[in-house]
């Protein structure tokens, strides 16, 4: 029973364009959401987060949007750069927990020069 779903296993975009990575969740108790980036042979690194009291959080080229009614969040990267090529994981926590997270399976983003 997957509570956090990333339905696109891969995404390919051109350098300079927007990358949009999507994530859906089923558990309405989730109130904290995070995105991680993972390069091969490295551990995941935290990218950006959003709590359920907000619908948008922006950090430089990265913006996360949260649609609670649709139980959907997305990560926008603008403009995309070749160095952004990595696997992106969506994760969710509940009850204010930001240590016991439920992760999606990840989306491999490839940014072509």
């Amino acid at each position, binding site marked *: 029973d997957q509570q956090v779903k990333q339905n696109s296993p891969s995404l390919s975009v051109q350098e300079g364009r927007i990358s949009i990575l999507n994530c859906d969740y089923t558990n309405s108790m989730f109130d904290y959401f995070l995105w991680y980036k993972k390069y091969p042979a490295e*551990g995941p690194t935290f990218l950006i987060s959003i709590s359920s009291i907000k619908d948008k959080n922006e950090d430089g080229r990265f913006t996360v949007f949260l649609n609670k009614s649709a139980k959907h969040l997305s990560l926008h990267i603008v403009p995309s750069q070749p160095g952004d090529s990595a696997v992106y*994981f969506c994760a969710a926590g509940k009850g204010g927990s930001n*240590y016991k997270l439920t992760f999606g399976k990840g989306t491999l983003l490839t940014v072509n020069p």
Partner: protein
Amino acid sequence: GAGVSQSPSNKVTEKGKDVELRCDPISGHTALYWYRQSLGQGLEFLIYFQGNSAPDKSGLPSDRFSAERTGGSVSTLTIQRTQQEDSAVYLCASSSRAGLNTEAFFGQGTRLTVV
């Protein structure tokens, strides 16, 4: 060290054997987390240590799994009588405050293969 260090980086073991996976967190970090990633899956929470508090072990999949953290620093994850379904990358992270966000850092993981 500069980052979270895990050893070994790769481990192949026979079914039924016990294995120990080690995590050296960043010095001074009070919070330590173990997750694992099975092939084609997302990361799965295993256990969380925070300071001197009792660990949250709710993610350990069976009683064959145990973990300890000695002296508030190094942590060891032990899997007894390994099974093929235990094959995964085991990831450790640490942070100075609770939370897998800005201040948390993951190690490179231990890839465990049970044959």
